[in-house]
């Protein structure tokens, strides 16, 4: 579970998160949507401790964040842009992170197979295509079987086949009861993957609830229409 109370963050004069409150129960798959620069990535990075909040509380799986780090053992994160040390070989990177954490990567072989990464394992990351780097990122995020998963625009660089495989995998993780946060600009994709949605606009949560309810409220058939309508509404 993830609980956020009055979370604020400013970068210089720019207030990115303006007092967010959020309660995501364990096992819920949630989409995070909003225009560019709304604060989606900042929110996820704050939950990870990459960005330090100015004020407010974050509680993840009953652990209050205060500069501690061990809670990250329970989180898998796939960043927006997958870029890794260029000279490193894929298999080395995977085992380096394994050694670093000292955890067993239970799904490593399975994910490598699913994403068809075997032919890439002995290549340097420098020569990997963008899509294959994304797959390495997805493998890193999920191989330790964490209870919480963050995906920041996961399918942005993937070809249709990989994107399909990735979504299949997400469905599996969902069935397995993982708590998930997925940011995306592709609404149809979110409809497939999540039941709940958070709509962020200028650092504030404008909507948080079930997708079904959002569609009903806005009398729309599709998520895209409902979100577009909310974006148009004056703040």
């Amino acid at each position, binding site marked *: 579970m993830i609980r956020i109370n009055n979370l604020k963050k400013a*970068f210089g004069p720019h207030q990115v998160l303006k007092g967010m409150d959020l309660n995501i129960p364990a096992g819920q798959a949630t989409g995070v949507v909003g225009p560019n620069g709304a604060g989606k990535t900042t929110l996820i*990075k704050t939950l*990870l*401790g*990459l*960005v*330090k909040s100015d004020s407010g509380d974050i509680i993840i799986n009953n652990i209050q964040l205060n*500069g501690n*780090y*061990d*809670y*990250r*053992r329970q*989180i898998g*994160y796939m*960043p927006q*842009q997958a*870029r*890794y*040390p260029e*000279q*490193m070989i894929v298999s080395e990177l995977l085992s*380096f*992170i394994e*050694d*670093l*954490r*000292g955890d067993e990567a239970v799904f490593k072989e399975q994910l490598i197979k699913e994403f068809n990464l075997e032919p890439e394992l002995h290549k340097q990351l420098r020569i990997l295509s963008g899509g294959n780097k994304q797959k390495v990122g997805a493998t*890193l995020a999920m191989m330790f079987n964490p209870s919480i998963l963050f995906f920041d625009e996961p399918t942005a660089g993937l070809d249709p086949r990989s994107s399909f495989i990735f979504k299949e995998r997400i469905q599996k993780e969902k069935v397995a009861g993982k708590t998930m946060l997925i940011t995306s600009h592709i609404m149809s994709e979110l409809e497939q993957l999540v039941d709940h949605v958070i709509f962020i606009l200028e650092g504030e949560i404008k909507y948080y609830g079930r997708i079904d309810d959002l569609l009903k409220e806005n009398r729309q058939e599709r998520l895209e229409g409902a979100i577009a309508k909310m974006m148009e509404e004056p703040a």
Partner: protein
Amino acid sequence: MRVYWQILRNEFQTLFRAKWVLGYGLIFLLLTDTLFRFSGGGTEVWVSVSNIMLLLIPIISLIYGILYIYQSRDYLELLLTQPVNRSTLFWGLYTGISAPLTVAFIIGSALPIGWHGGLASGSASQLFFVLALGSLLTFIFVGLGFVMGLYFYDDKIKGFGFSIVIWLFMAVIYDGLIMVIIFMFGDYSLETSVIFITMLNPMDIARILILMEFDISALMGYSGAVFNRFFGSNLGILVSGGMLVLWLAVPSWVGLRIFNRKDF
């Protein structure tokens, strides 16, 4: 501790694979080798090595420290999303970069001794002194590079610019300023103040320690004698050693502080 060693090991692997660290070692290897051939392996070799070292190590370490921060942003982010303490990560990276540079310098400088028939008698302590000083300078300037890289995280031009200015200031301008002061206030007895000012520049401290170690302060006339009296005394060695340690501790501490509070 395990996490620290993992990071350190990975840095060593990455750096030596990048080969240019080998090139860096090779520079010192060629230098020492050439000096051995020309001057026969006495004190002159180590004086000359230390002269080059005083200029080369600070700039290379500084630039590499800052370059590393700029080049590894994604790698840093990856590591920071793992269950890893920020301080552990910082020390792992800092020593993981300083140590391979130090190793390359030490091996490069010392290896030619092997095929030039060993050390001349009495130069073992000189060799040790030069290598220790070079290692210390490596750590000091990698630390400064880290500080600059972390402070100007999003403004590379500024970061590089200020780093080069820092080096230029310490290596060249600082001494020029001291000269100006001596010239302007030549009528007064300045030795004590000059010693004090010198203490604020790690490259100057290193330079003077080398002058003392090789006993060439006599070349500097009266000032040399004053320097010798101070730096040659136990107090002087203690103070200048202490200042170098301070130069090591302060930048790495500042770097750690920035790193711990930074938004990535």
